[in-house]
């Protein structure tokens, strides 16, 4: 559905996007994950045909530069910070609806879908951030396009609005829409994406499924193992002997870091040595740790 092939975008001597290639299949949701300045928004602008670039981007076989208009008609786009003409929300919807050739019936339908009915007669400048986002989402969906391109779509939303918004996008994805979205929130990525494309300094540095992203990045889970006080030293020695970097946290708790696949091994070793395990806590790599890894020099 979306094919990005060796795309490079230069601003003078700086490569904002550096030879990026990936595909998004029909009905798939792909997240562009990366820090600010990683090149996500620039790449989205290239996909929308708003910037000239080297390489090729096609949407459903249509080249976004050569068949810009036809390609753009396949996309519903939600920007990071929606900006509208100073008109009523209804007038804005009618304007973009007319550009996309839809009738009033569809406008009413979409207004109800995104929950904009009560605010439809307000000037766009009087809408809250959340309502503006709903309006931009309504515009994106107005012609029922097969592809949704979302540039950090929840950055201006509160927790409740964000949850609703993500739910709606997931429903649309389940209905068969192809979704490409940029984000730097791992929870959103895990909730929506089938695949994650990690970008750093304009390059794609990794592609992964969201649930194994931490592992792919080489991040370890933390295990907190509680044993009876008399056994703490023995347990530490056994685990160290087995190659685990176990640390005694207090009189009865051990801390060790293992890969996701190794989680059961320390337990097996302790049980084999007949050391009773009283409690177990597992801490998956936090979003902060993953983002630090993505942003830092780790990859």
């Amino acid at each position, binding site marked *: 559905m979306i094919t990005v092939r060796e795309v490079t975008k230069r601003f003078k001597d700086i490569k904002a996007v550096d030879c990026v290639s990936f595909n998004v299949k029909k009905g798939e949701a792909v997240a562009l994950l990366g820090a600010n300045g990683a090149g996500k928004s620039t790449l989205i*602008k290239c996909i929308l045909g*708003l*910037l000239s670039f080297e390489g090729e981007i096609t949407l459903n076989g249509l080249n976004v530069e050569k068949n810009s208009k036809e390609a*753009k008609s396949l*996309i519903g*786009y939600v920007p990071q910070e929606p*900006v*509208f003409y100073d*008109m009523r929300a209804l007038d804005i919807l009618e304007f973009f609806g007319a550009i996309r050739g839809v009738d009033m019936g569809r406008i009413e339908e979409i207004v109800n879908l995104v929950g904009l009915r009560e605010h439809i007669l307000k000037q766009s400048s009087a809408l809250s951030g959340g309502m503006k986002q709903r309006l931009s989402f309504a515009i994106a969906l107005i012609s029922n396009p097969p592809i949704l391109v979302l540039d950090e779509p929840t950055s201006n939303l509160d927790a409740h609005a964000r949850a609703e918004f993500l739910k709606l996008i997931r429903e649309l994805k389940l209905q068969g829409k192809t979704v490409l979205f940029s984000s730097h929130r791992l929870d959103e990525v895990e909730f929506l994406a089938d695949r994650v494309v990690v970008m750093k300094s304009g390059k794609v540095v990794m592609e992964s499924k969201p649930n194994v992203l931490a592992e792919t990045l080489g991040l370890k889970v933390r295990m907190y193992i509680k044993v009876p006080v008399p056994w703490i030293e023995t347990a530490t020695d056994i685990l160290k002997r087995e190659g685990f970097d176990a640390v005694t946290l207090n009189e009865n708790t051990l801390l060790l870091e293992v890969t996701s696949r190794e989680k059961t091994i320390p337990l097996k070793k302790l049980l084999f040595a007949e050391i009773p395990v009283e409690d177990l806590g597992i801490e998956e790599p936090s979003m902060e740790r993953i983002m630090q890894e993505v942003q830092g020099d780790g990859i």
Partner: protein
Amino acid sequence: MEFKNVLLIMQKEVREALKNRWFIIYTVCFSILALLLLFFSYSREEILGVSGFGRTAASLINLVLLFVPLVSLVTGAISISNERENGTLFYLLSHPVERSEVFTGKFLGLLVSIWVSICLGFGLSGIVVGIKGGSLGASKYLLTTLLSLLLAASLLSIGFIVSVLSKKAAKSIGISVFLWLFFLVFSDLGIMGTTIVMDLGIKSVFVLALLNPTEVFKIAAVLNMSPRFEVLGPVGVYALRSFGRDGTFYLLFSAMILWTVIPIVIGFLAFTLLKKE
């Protein structure tokens, strides 16, 4: 280019302009000043329109020269740069519209808005003169209106080039105000200075005058108003002898059309070829 999209964007521009506070202030000021000039232009003896439309049009020329270039240049200059700066242009272009449609729609929309404003000023004065019984020079009055509309179109076109090439609205406003001063003040001084220093002939001075759209308007408007060409000085006499009265007028009229067409084509090409969003 799809006409439907051009029309939609054009309608949006007109609607926005007619709601724009500054545009309303400009239209009201222009109309009031046009009416005031009308009353001042009549002496007590001529109050019933002895010179009618002709005198009114002559008074309006100075008003047009002051107001129309400034408003047209600034309106054109912020048309695209302002939208580029606040992100609405980027958002509009993310929809299935071509850059050529956006440019054409915006230009036509703003042109219609400025023309409505000018026609309102000229129209109100025309109605008052008509009611008072002045009918002499109606055609001259209409021609002055037409020249004013052309002047607006040419300066709006120049403003659009500034807008396409500027990323910031503030910068484009600054450039447009400088251009306004240049066309109205520095250009005259420049022609005079160059003529003296380089000892230019009358023909060269006439050609130099054609390089300034406000100058072209001024000459064409005065030529339209006065049966005596000598009011334009030696250059006027030269033009009269070289091209005749009608020939000179057609030349000036063509120059004004070129001053509209050439800048708008440059602006159009720059906007459609340079993707600055």
